[in-house]
């Protein structure tokens, strides 16, 4: 039974003119000032920006660590940093880049853009969204706070046992690492649930499945991958910390455990993780290629099917990280085949983008230039990936710089170049101002040359036998020249990010005003003001095509009948996006922040005593009740 409630005296959007409607909605959906207001906000745009800024700070921090390592490796027999610190540096670099930058930065763009692109007023479960941000922030602060206090994990970003067992690493470093995993995975899982529900249930009326922008499809698949992959690493890191703190025996071979169980669980997460980091990059590319080619992406259906195929196949590859652990031959053959198979849907995507550019009229602005850089670097990384899928090559180059070169080509090429493109592309939407094109082109030159100078020589170093994770090497190995070259490239590459930062700061202050749709793009985020009002859209759009802003001209079909003084949004059916319910979206609340804070205290406390969980859980539970308890009778309606 679905009661229709009579609400005669409520003001609806259809009752008001444009200006008054905008002012009233902005008041209803806005965030109040003051510290409590700032910590209570549930606006997906505000949270999305916080996620992005935090992730970029971690990118810079991880980058600084990389530079220190490159300075150390620039010449043989160097003692700039010792072996112990070097171990800490590469562990923190990998951990920061994967967990505190790579995953959250994709989430940041999804949180900001998906609700705008599907034409709704806020993300689903906005308080959970706020909670997730604070949990992520506290996790990052814990890891780096520990680093500042000399509690430093030094066992690699994958924390292999038995090295990470208490016997071999008695300090608290691996415990901080394992709890940081819990923090960031809780956050990522929460965001994935929000994105899935936003995409399935909050699309603007008329946005049928085949009108969903490719960006949004990508983020949907991305979220499902997170849901099936992240529990593995949460389970594994919890088992590790229990082995270390309460003497469980999961990974102790003498007591019925197995160190390889860690590797299986870690890589069951760890390989999909590569796609969790990479897919947002493809989302950016799809959006940018369409806009700057002036036509929709070629092959919408194969693109969507490729995404889904990548999602499934990404779970069938994890053992290729374990080829040298002594697997049965049939197993190794299977994982070789599946590792090569995933090149097919990736290839389909690349060819569809190229076909789009081929058929369109490409406009070479900064975002598209970075996308072209992505094609080159990512394809190169993909090719060395196909090589590494072969067991004999993998065995030969395992743990050498060849692998380091490969995954930096894939991860930086696949994610960071599209990410920079995305910054140039959506900066005007977020700030209302364009970034400087000329600086953008200089940045690209610096980044592209710097990146290839830094990482291409590593292929050769690996083939010459230079192992990973060594803090120095003797001069007689003959690796000095290529290492010096790589270090010089790394400095250029790092400088390109400083240039971007400079460009962002000056453009935010004095860049030319962009207007609503500076690139003449086709998706709905460009249908609203720059920056968007708290309510996103004054009138909810009614979608009639896959490229709404290109097809509709001056005539804008909209939805009417929503309340103006309450946070109402339209919930639609999954496939056809028929309007079904006017659902109330939760108002700002301080409780998610407090619950996240209490959760953080309990998690960090648990590193020192298991009782922290026992005493922390009831506190968190009380805060959650306060969070969910309805405050007004209207919330029940």
């Amino acid at each position, binding site marked *: 039974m679905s*009661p*229709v409630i009579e609400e005669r005296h409520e003001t609806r959007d259809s009752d008001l003119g444009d200006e008054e409607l905008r002012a009233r909605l902005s008041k209803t959906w806005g965030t109040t000032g003051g510290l409590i207001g700032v910590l209570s906000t549930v606006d997906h745009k505000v949270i999305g920006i916080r996620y992005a800024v935090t992730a970029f700070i971690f990118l810079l921090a991880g980058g600084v660590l990389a530079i220190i390592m490159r300075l150390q490796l620039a010449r043989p027999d160097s003692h700039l940093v010792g072996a112990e610190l070097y171990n800490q540096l590469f562990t923190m670099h990998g951990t920061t880049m994967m967990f505190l930058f790579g995953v959250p930065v994709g989430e940041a763009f999804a949180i900001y853009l998906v609700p705008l692109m599907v034409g709704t007023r806020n993300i689903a479960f906005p308080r959970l969204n706020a909670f997730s941000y604070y949990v992520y922030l506290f996790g990052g602060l814990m890891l780096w706070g520990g680093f500042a206090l000399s509690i430093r994990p030094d066992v690699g970003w994958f924390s292999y046992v038995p090295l990470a067992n208490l016997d071999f690493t008695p300090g608290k470093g691996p415990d901080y690492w394992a709890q940081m995993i819990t923090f960031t995975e809780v956050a990522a899982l929460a965001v994935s649930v929000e994105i899935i*529900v936003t995409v399935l249930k909050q699309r603007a009326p008329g946005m049928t499945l085949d009108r969903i922008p490719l960006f949004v499809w990508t983020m949907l698949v991305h979220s499902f991958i997170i849901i099936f992959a992240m529990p593995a690493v949460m389970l594994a890191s919890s088992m590790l910390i229990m082995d270390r703190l309460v003497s469980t025996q999961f990974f102790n071979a003498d007591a019925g455990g197995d160190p390889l169980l860690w590797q299986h669980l870690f890589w069951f997460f760890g390989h999909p993780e590569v796609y969790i980091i990479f897919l947002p990059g493809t989302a950016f590319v799809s959006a940018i290629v369409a806009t700057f080619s002036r036509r929709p992406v070629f092959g919408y259906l194969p693109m969507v099917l490729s995404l889904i195929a990548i999602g499934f196949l990404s779970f069938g590859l994890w053992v290729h990280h374990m080829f040298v652990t002594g697997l049965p031959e049939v197993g190794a053959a299977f994982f070789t085949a599946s590792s090569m198979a995933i090149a097919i849907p990736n290839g389909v995507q690349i060819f569809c983008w190229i076909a789009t550019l081929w058929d369109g009229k490409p406009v070479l602005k900064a975002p598209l230039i970075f996308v072209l850089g992505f094609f080159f670097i990512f394809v190169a990384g993909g090719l060395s990936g196909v090589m590494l899928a072969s067991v004999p090559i993998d065995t030969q180059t395992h743990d050498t710089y060849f692998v380091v070169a490969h995954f930096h080509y894939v991860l930086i090429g696949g994610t960071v170049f599209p990410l920079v493109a995305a910054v140039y592309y959506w900066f005007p939407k977020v700030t209302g101002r364009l970034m400087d094109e000329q600086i953008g082109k200089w940045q690209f030159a610096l980044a592209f040359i710097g990146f290839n100078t830094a990482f291409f020589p590593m292929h050769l170093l690996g083939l010459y036998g230079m192992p990973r994770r060594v803090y120095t090497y003797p001069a007689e190995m003959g690796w000095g020249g290529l290492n010096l070259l790589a270090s010089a490239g790394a400095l250029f590459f790092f400088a390109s990010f400083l240039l971007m930062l400079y460009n962002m700061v000056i453009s935010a202050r004095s860049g030319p005003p962009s207007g609503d749709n500076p690139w003449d793009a086709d998706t709905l985020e460009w249908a609203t003001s720059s920056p968007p009002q708290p309510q996103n859209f004054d009138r909810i759009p009614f979608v009639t095509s896959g490229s709404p802003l290109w097809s509709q001209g001056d005539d804008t079909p909209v939805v009417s009948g929503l309340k103006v003084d309450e946070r109402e949004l339209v919930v639609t059916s999954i496939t056809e996006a028929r309007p079904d319910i006017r659902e109330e979206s939760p108002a700002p609340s301080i409780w998610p922040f407090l619950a996240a804070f209490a959760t953080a205290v309990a998690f960090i406390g648990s590193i020192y005593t298991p009782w922290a969980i026992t005493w922390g859980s009831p506190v968190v539970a009380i805060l959650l009740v306060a969070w969910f308890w309805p405050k007004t009778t209207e919330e029940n309606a």
Partner: protein
Amino acid sequence: MARSVIDVSGLPTYAFGSRVTPWWGTFSFCLLEGTGFALGIGGYLYLAVTNTHWAKDAVPLNLVWSAAFTLVLVASAIPNFLIKRAALQENLRSVRLLLLAMSSVGLVLIVLRIMEFSALPVRWSDNAYGSFIWLLLGLHGVHVLTDVADTLVLTVLMFTRHGTGKRFSDAEDNAFYWYFVVLSWLPLYAVLYWLPRL
């Protein structure tokens, strides 16, 4: 020019089942938690196959308390179904009574789970088998605990002025999650209690 093509003012403000967003939120959490359970069972089976100590360590567990727990848990699906039905009918009196019943059942289950733990022949620190028993039993126990806590809060809520409208949809959602708690136990029960006896 904005031109209204559809008027949504007549739509309801809440509904039930997969029409509403909380249902999809709960469903997603079931997926990710179910993945956690599946991987936990996978880890258990992996060690059972690969580690030669396992056969010696894997002493069968006491069947009494776990049988009582399983029976009560499976039987709880009946009042759970009735809550769902009463919630759909927005029958406040029935929902209140049934929530009281489900809360009591939940508390009984927590006691039974504690008895189950106390009857375990291995400690978590004895060997990896013991670690897995405690982990999986604990993981499922946390699910029971959180949903019982949720049910208790909801029960109180339904006895206040808030026990109206959308809260019936919450009661239905809570019942949906309880099915997950019941269903996820069955494979765990088979693996933990019966597999070592084969």
